[in-house]
Every structure is written in structure tokens, then in C-alpha cells.
């Protein structure tokens, strides 16, 4: 999907207008896409578990900015935004959720397991913390092979409590591996508030104790996220060792479509909604007179058309033949 890629491939540099607009477009695309997913879930077109990141779009779009085709991404089950921001076509993401063979994982993965190896998007991991060791290994391979790649690993505040986090941050720091630990701190792990899961809730501070560079970022400000990500990625690429970013964000909706969201105070949600990353950027662009109402409508229309297309093609797409059930348990050819 050209646009998605455009966002992913945009060269570093000053956050000029067109760039800010493209960031807005990237976040808007994710927002509208996920809102459509919610509708389609209620309509029974998407099944299984569905986790949307509505409210967290600035993290996905901002972190992706400095990445190149050499870089790798490891994500979670809440990864639609990461995938789209990386340039995975909406069609293949939507088809995946429809369980169609045209899906980015041939319909075998679903919402939680989006993969696109061509774009070095290594999934979609639904074991909390399970992607961290993979990221360490991807980075180890890049380092041993002398490739310039940086591996970005997205994970949540909940994953921070898993033993694998401890093991992996130490491994990356010990071996000075090119890993960017992108911790999406949305203050909740399902229904468990951070302060009920961690004795010390300053995640960036604690991460620093492992001997890597670490700092917190306003995850609702896409420009701040981009700036932090660029600084971290440059540092890592130049051999500075791994970095940890605590991206302070919030999910506006429930954990999953099954979650009645009993554990959050409505006022808290409302407060965070005032910091909607899309509204923030729109307001800013408006104030600078760089965005007119019609521009926004045009963008929305364009993105909506794209999503309609993705849905239409997903609906039209075929299913994997049942006879092929046992394919891909083992490789069909040697790998080079």
C-alpha cells in the first residue's frame, strides 16, 4: 500500500508541513481502519480476539518514522497500527482478519498474528512478552552479519513484568545489540493498572538500571514520539547499543471486544481523550494554518475509500482450501 509505505519510508529531516500532514494521514488511516474493524467485529465478519489501539496511533506512526527497509519490527496482538504504519497493505491486513488466503498470514493468523516478512514485520505475537527474545535474536543476527538494521520491539507495560523482559533487556545491553525497546505504557494490562502490577511504576527509570539508554516520551504527541524514535534509532544504528523508550499513551477503548471495561474510571478515559493524538496534531496544523477543513475531509474520504476497498477485496477473496490445512507446519522447501 503505497501510502503506508510512504509513511514508513519517509526520509528523516525537519518535520515540515507535508511531513506533519503525512503523519496525520498515517494516524487517521489507522484510526479509521480500526474503527471499521470494530464495526466488522460486531457484524460478525471478524472473529477471535480483536485488540484495537485507538488512542495509541501516535506511537505506531511516530516510532516508524526513522526506520528503513533494513530495520525489523516485532509486535504484539495489538498490532494493526504497527503493521499499517510499516506499510503492510490494508487489503492484506483486512483479508487476514477475514481469514482469507489473501491475508498477510493466509488467514491462519488473524488479528493477533499479522506477518509481512518482505517488510521485516515479524508479527503479531500473542504471548505477552513472547516477542522480546525474537527481537534480541533478530538484532543479534544483524550484528553478527554486519548489517545496518535496527530491530524495534513493541510491547506493553504488562509485558514489563514478565521474566522474559528482564532476560532480554539484559542480553541486549550485555551484547550491545541494535534493539529499540518500544514500551507502550497505556497504564493497563487488561484490567490491571500499572500501579497494581509494579512496585516501581517509573518504567523508563527502571529500564535504565539494566545499563542501556532509556527515557520516557509523551506517546500522544506524534512529533515527540518521532523525535525520540529518531534519536534512539540513530544512536543504535551508530553502535550506541540498545535503547528503551517508555511511550506514555492510553487506549481509548476496552482491552478487547470481550472487555466490559469495568476497571477504568470514565472520567480518566475522558481526560485522556482530550489528548487524542489526532486532534492534537489537527489543532496544531490548524493553528499554523496548514490544514483546512476541506483538506481534512478529503483525507478522511481518501482513507475511507481505501478501507472500503480493503473490505471489498477481503470479502471477495477466497479461503485457503481445507485440503491445505496441514501446510506450513514444516517448510516445503529448503531455506537459503
Amino acid at each position: 500500500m503505497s501510502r503506508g509505505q510512504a509513511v514508513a519510508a519517509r526520509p528523516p529531516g525537519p518535520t515540515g508541513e507535508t511531513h506533519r500532514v503525512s503523519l496525520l494521514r498515517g494516524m487517521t488511516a489507522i484510526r479509521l481502519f480500526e474503527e471499521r474493524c470494530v464495526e466488522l467485529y460486531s457484524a460478525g465478519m471478524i472473529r477471535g480476539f480483536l485488540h484495537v489501539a485507538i488512542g495509541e496511533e501516535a506511537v505506531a506512526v511516530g516510532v516508524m518514522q526513522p526506520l528503513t527497509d533494513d530495520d525489523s519490527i516485532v509486535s504484539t496482538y495489538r498490532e494493526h497500527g504497527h503493521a499499517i504504519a510499516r506499510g503492510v497493505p490494508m487489503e492484506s491486513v483486512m483479508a487476514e482478519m477475514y481469514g482469507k488466503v489473501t491475508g498477510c498470514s493466509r488467514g491462519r493468523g488473524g488479528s493477533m498474528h499479522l506477518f509481512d516478512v518482505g517488510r521485516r514485520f515479524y508479527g503479531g505475537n500473542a504471548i505477552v512478552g513472547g516477542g522480546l527474545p525474537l527481537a534480541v535474536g533478530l538484532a543479534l543476527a544483524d550484528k553478527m552479519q554486519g548489517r545496518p538494521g535496527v530491530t524495534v520491539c513493541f510491547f506493553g507495560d504488562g509485558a514489563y513484568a514478565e521474566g522474559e523482559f528482564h532476560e532480554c533487556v539484559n542480553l541486549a545491553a550485555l551484547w550491545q545489540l541494535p534493539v529499540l525497546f518500544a514500551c507502550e505504557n497505556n497504564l493497563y494490562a487488561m484490567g490491571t493498572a500499572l500501579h497494581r502490577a509494579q512496585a516501581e511504576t517509573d518504567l523508563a527509570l527502571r529500564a535504565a538500571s539494566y545499563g542501556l539508554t532509556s527515557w520516557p516520551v509523551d506517546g500522544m504527541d506524534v512529533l515527540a514520539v518521532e523525535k525520540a524514535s529518531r534519536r534512539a534509532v540513530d544512536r543504535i544504528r551508530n553502535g550506541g547499543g540498545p535503547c528503551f523508550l517508555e511511550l506514555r499513551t492510553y487506549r481509548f477503548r476496552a482491552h478487547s471486544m470481550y472487555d466490559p471495561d469495568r476497571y477504568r474510571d470514565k472520567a480518566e478515559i475522558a481526560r485522556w481523550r482530550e489528548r487524542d493524538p489526532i486532534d492534537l496534531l489537527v489543532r496544531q496544523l490548524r493553528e499554523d494554518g496548514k490544514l483546512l477543513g476541506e483538506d481534512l475531509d478529503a483525507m478522511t474520504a481518501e482513507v475511507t475509500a481505501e478501507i472500503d476497498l480493503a473490505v471489498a477485496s477481503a470479502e471477495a477473496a477466497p479461503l485457503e482450501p481445507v485440503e491445505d490445512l496441514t501446510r506450513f507446519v514444516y517448510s516445503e522447501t529448503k531455506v537459503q
Partner: protein
Amino acid sequence: MTTATVGTVETTYREALREAIREALREDDRVFLMGEDVGMYGGCFAVSLGLLEEFGPERVRDTPLSESGFVGAGVGAAIAGMRPIVEIMTVNFSLLALDQILNNAATLLHMSGGQVHVPLVIRMTTGAGRQLAAQHSHSFEGWYAHIPGIKVIAPATLEDARGMLWTALQDPDPVLLFEHGSLYNMSGTLAEDAGHVDIQRTAVRRPGRDVTLVSYGGSLSKTLDAAETLAVDGIEAEVLDLRSLRPLDDEAIMESVSHTHRAVVVDEGWRSGSLSAEISARITEQCFFDLDSPVERVCSAEVPMPYAKHLEEAALPQPETVVAAVRRAVG
């Protein structure tokens, strides 16, 4: 306690489990429930909904995402006189705690020469059928049934959902209780005074003379459906509900096979190395000369569970595949 039936109540598997936990918390102050999101969230499958409000955060204890840590903490608390009920959201995540379950919970009693008792109950959701794909759909209860030192039970009925937990809590050793995810919404009636049940014996859920169908947990209803279909053609299948996966109730299994002379084992685990293999091997060892045909197995295809509905259905045992296996056996 299950004998006298005064009135009956409409309930679900989920509610029956909740009642069992509530009773345990009420009756024994050494009991507490610990796991991810058992409290504020209400339980990831709403089993423990309302218990936090009733019993407070000490006894309905939310944990961080630290499976190995809190499962091992349950082992330690059990050693020191508590009666923990530890919930692991799904069996898929329990692999993170397997070291604590096998190398500590199951082993400490023997390794200490009989000194360290671990009266611990661990509850987990297992199984597929909800398009949750390859990291949320597997069935490892058969794997756990390989471990000496623990007991493994799988309630397939409302009575057992209501009655097994208390009995498990009275056991001096670790008991793993597996709840199939597709059963939570199963509804029906239960005796008002439904209570404790044994967790030793396999139950005959449908008597029959022509073939023995061995199943448990989430596979029981599919197996009973198959039996109905077969009955139409005059094949009377006897359906067993294992209930206890470790120890296995050999006596009940062999008793049935020795009069039906044929057996089909239905098990949602991957076929190779599944519990069905052990049951098949035991039937052959103990009933070889009674068997008219080899024991058949109906298991899951050996694939990580796919998301797409049609593929998931094809990967799982279904009434049709059970029927087909029975026809091979009697054919």
C-alpha cells in the same frame, strides 16, 4: 452431598465454577484465588466476576503478568498452610510456569522424602473452537497428565464444574483443573444443593453395548452427538467421560471395553503423543484379547491451530469424524 435433590436451579458452567470458588472462599479461610485479572477485571472469562467485591483484594488477588512467579508463589503458599487456587488464563501461557509446576509442585514431596506437601489447585482454560489461533487454542492437559506428583481433572458437566473444586482443595497434592473454553456458556439445571463430587472415577455418560467412546472435557458433547447419530443406525455407543486424566480410571475403561470389544478415544490434543495414545496403549495392554478391532483415535490435526473458521473446524475432532472412526471400528 449430591444425592438428595431438593429443587434445581438454572445455571451455566461459568456460574457453577464461580459458585464452587465462592463456596471454597467462604468455607475455608486458607483458600484464596490468585491470578491475572481475577479481581478488578472479573476474570478473563468472567468466572470470578464479583468475587473481589465479596472477598476483597487479599483473597481475590490480581497478579502482574508473571506466570512463573505467581504459580511458584502458589506452591510456596500451599507449603506454608494456605490453600491457593491459582488461575492461569489459558494453558498456552502455563508453559511459562511449567518449571514451577513440574520441578517444584510435582517434585518437592518426593525430593524431600515426604516432608513437603503442596495442597495447591491450579485452574486453566484449555482448548480451541473460538478462532483464537495458534497461541491461544491448544490442549496440553494430556501433557500435564504425564507428570507424576500431580493430579489432573477436567469437568465436562455442570455438576463437575460445581463439585470438583472442593474435592481438589481437600487433596494434599497439586491438582490441575482444566476448563474448556467452549463450555463456559453451557447452561442447564443443577440441583440446588449440588456440591462436592469425587474426582477419581470415570463416568458413563451414555450406556451402550457396541463400542466404547472415551472422551472428556470439551470433547464430551461432540462425542455424545456422535453417539446419537450412530444410534439412528442401531449402533449403541457407550460414552465415557474420563473426568480424571491423571490418574486414569483404568478399571472403568476396561470394564466398558471388555463388554463392547471396541474403543474409540476422542481427544482434542495433537494426535502424536496425546493422552489418547496412553489410553489406546492401556486398552491394548489390558484388553488385547477382548478387542475385535484396534483402538481408534480421533484427535486434533497436528498443526498449530489456524485462525480461519473452516480450517479450525477441520483441525478439530467433530461428531462426523467420531462417527467415521466408529464405523471403521465396527465395520
